[in-house]
């Protein structure tokens, strides 16, 4: 008698991996891609990263979070017959027929060393630490090479003006993949400059949160110490009761 499959088995079956769990005969749609000059036939619908794994690559470099946050899998590609060079994240981009691609290892870049506590919220700070900022020729290559679609050149112009807030807000979604810096003809390291600008804005450009300061003082003065004694001594039954008695603040 055939045993009925458990829910967990059914889930595992429908969740099977799109690279290791698939048989070639079950793949309906294929595309051809070129990885560092070699052609591979891979299933349509995979990401570049999954497609390379399907083809037999096991990553050491050029793979990190696999979710578009870490910038490790910066990749550039051209399609046959096109002049345009695309810059993308391999983990966030679907393979397309005729892609010629290469992954870009992280290029060396100098980061300024500074003590954030000793800085002045002054228009010249960014230029002081990164004088090459002034070399920007406004070619917009950085913007075009940003896989996060940030207006990189705009924030570099704001950085030259010393506008911390504008740089901080424009650059906030930067994942520091480094593609802007490797393509910049003026050899500016945009993502390091943006990092300094954000820290300057976060540290010196915002008002203090009063509630936090009050709470820190309360803790320091031992406001909760007596209650802690009671809480830490409570057994599970008592804790369950206290937990159930919590009132949810209104939405």
């Amino acid at each position, binding site marked *: 008698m055939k045993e009925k499959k458990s829910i967990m088995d*059914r889930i595992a079956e429908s969740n099977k991996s799109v690279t290791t769990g698939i048989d070639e005969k079950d793949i309906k749609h294929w595309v051809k891609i070129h990885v560092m000059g070699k052609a591979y036939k891979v299933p349509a619908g995979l990401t570049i990263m999954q497609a390379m794994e399907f083809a037999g690559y096991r990553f050491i470099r050029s793979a990190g979070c696999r979710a578009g946050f870490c910038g490790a899998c910066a990749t550039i590609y051209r399609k046959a017959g096109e002049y345009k060079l695309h810059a993308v994240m391999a983990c966030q981009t679907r393979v397309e027929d005729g892609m010629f691609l290469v992954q870009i290892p992280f290029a060396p870049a100098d980061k300024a060393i500074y003590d954030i506590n000793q800085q002045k919220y002054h228009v010249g700070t960014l230029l002081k630490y990164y004088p090459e900022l002034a070399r920007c020729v406004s070619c917009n290559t950085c913007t075009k090479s940003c896989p996060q679609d940030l207006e990189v050149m705009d924030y570099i112009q704001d950085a030259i003006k010393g506008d911390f807030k504008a740089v901080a807000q424009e650059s906030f*979604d930067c994942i520091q993949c480094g593609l802007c810096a490797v393509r910049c003809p003026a050899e500016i390291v945009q993502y390091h400059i943006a990092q*300094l600008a954000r820290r300057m804005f976060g540290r010196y450009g915002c008002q203090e949160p009063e509630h936090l300061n009050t709470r820190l003082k309360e803790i320091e003065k031992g406001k909760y110490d007596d209650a802690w004694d009671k809480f830490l001594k409570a057994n599970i039954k008592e804790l369950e009761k206290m937990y159930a008695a*919590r009132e949810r603040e209104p939405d």
Partner: protein
Amino acid sequence: MSEVKYIKGYPEYMRELIDVVNKTRIKRKDYSPPAMSKEERQDVLKLHPDYAPGGKRKISIGQNKGDIGPNEVVDLLEAYPLVEDEEIDLSAVDYDAEILIIGGGLAGTSAAIWANNQGVPAEKILLVNKLRHGDANSIMAEGGTQAADRPNDSPLIHYLDAMGGGHFANKPEVLKALVEDAPYIMHWLLDLGAMIDREENGEFTEKWGGGTCRRRMHACRDYTGLEEFRVIRDEFRNRKIPSLEFFPAIELLTDGEGRVTGAVLCNLETSEYEIVKAKATILATGGFGRLHIRGFPTTNHYGATCDGVVLAYRAGAKLKDADTVQYHPTGAAFPPQIIGLLLTEKLRSMGAQPVNKDGEAFVFPLEPRDVEAASFIRECYVRNKGVPTPTGMIGIWLDTPLIEMKNGEGTIEKAFPGMKRMFERFDIDMRKDPVLVFPTLHYQNGGVETDPEGRSTVEGLFVAGEISGGVHGKNRLMGNSTLDCMVFGRISGIYAAEYVKKAKRKGKSSLEHVKKYANMLQEAGIKPERKAPILLPDYRGKAALARMIDVF
């Protein structure tokens, strides 16, 4: 090569199902199913992958012998070392450090800075990373960090929320340290210049998290972990603390008397080993998502393979709550390129509602994660009200357009730029259409047992972050993981610094404990077919592997 036809990112049949969701949206705007009672929760939890039978077994050797763990974890505990004692020359020391930190996410990097603050010179600290510095789950944290700093809140209420969420298994003193230091951590982040979402008057913007009774979630748009981490890493780099990349630890060293004295590293590219001697070692290697427990997809980064737990267990450290696995209710189920990736809980905090195939809201959106996830499984696999995808998955709609309806147009763009961008890359507009979700393997709730000072049960060995066990009990709440990393990164850095000031000169370094462990495996009759740590998962296609030959 005919391609599937998509209309704004979805195949035609899914479009028709989206129409059903669109029709009921107005009615659902001001309605939400009530939160479940304790009994209802217990009933639905039987369907949770962490409670459903068949996924776990007893550990057969070592200090937690007899305790249960997920099969995939026990497989690694019952695995042989990568190298034999005789293959390693321990006399040639490559790095002589006071403090060795293994793992450079939020926890490890915070630990380095605070050890330095506590007086350990930068050059006496060494941070080693398996991949790049920052290839960690930390930077993928989207939703937020909890800290009880609003007037109607307190660390005590935070404590109760986390206790209940953790099924009252949390270690009280450890949890107290977490919630009591939380406001200070927010203060530290501001001092470093982190851009945490704020109101006009400077107060934090604070949102709901699942299982909490106060709004205390601090976010940085939906790049919370990224912002916290990159600021902390920048500070680390300003201190010129030495670090290595692509250099995983493959074994700890001990002095033969139960004290940890460093580690064996391996250069991932050349496969050479290197020896680090250290007075104190902090393990901050993160979790185990890439073990794909019970076949689930995962939100975790490429290197989340449980290495640290394996190493610590061989060195004699006790584990706590290592049996419990957290599945995040809302992993992406469509499109197939992003299966398993995290859709932050903050989407639900801001009004997105889980909806079934018939357009019905079927669960309170902010139950604790395990309850929420189990209710999705029930809807898909028991009540058969899930939505099938072209690759055979079954999912639940997360009605994201409700966020805009409730909070005004433009909210998604402002609060969830990362999420919106991810779906846009696959032609889906989450402002206009719902997205499909299913639970995804998210977090290792337990691990190496810790105390309020970040100590493991082995002398000289500290732990911080996801690798540790005790603070979250059996289930972690949203916003307590980034907090855990920073609080216990800081605490372990401080106490490791105190420890090395008093510790005697480093003792001898040996792999005796590994040899003993291998003997125990043999005596238990475990065949030498598995080796650990595994370091990285293997996703190569079947056809490619079948033709692979070893020639080079």
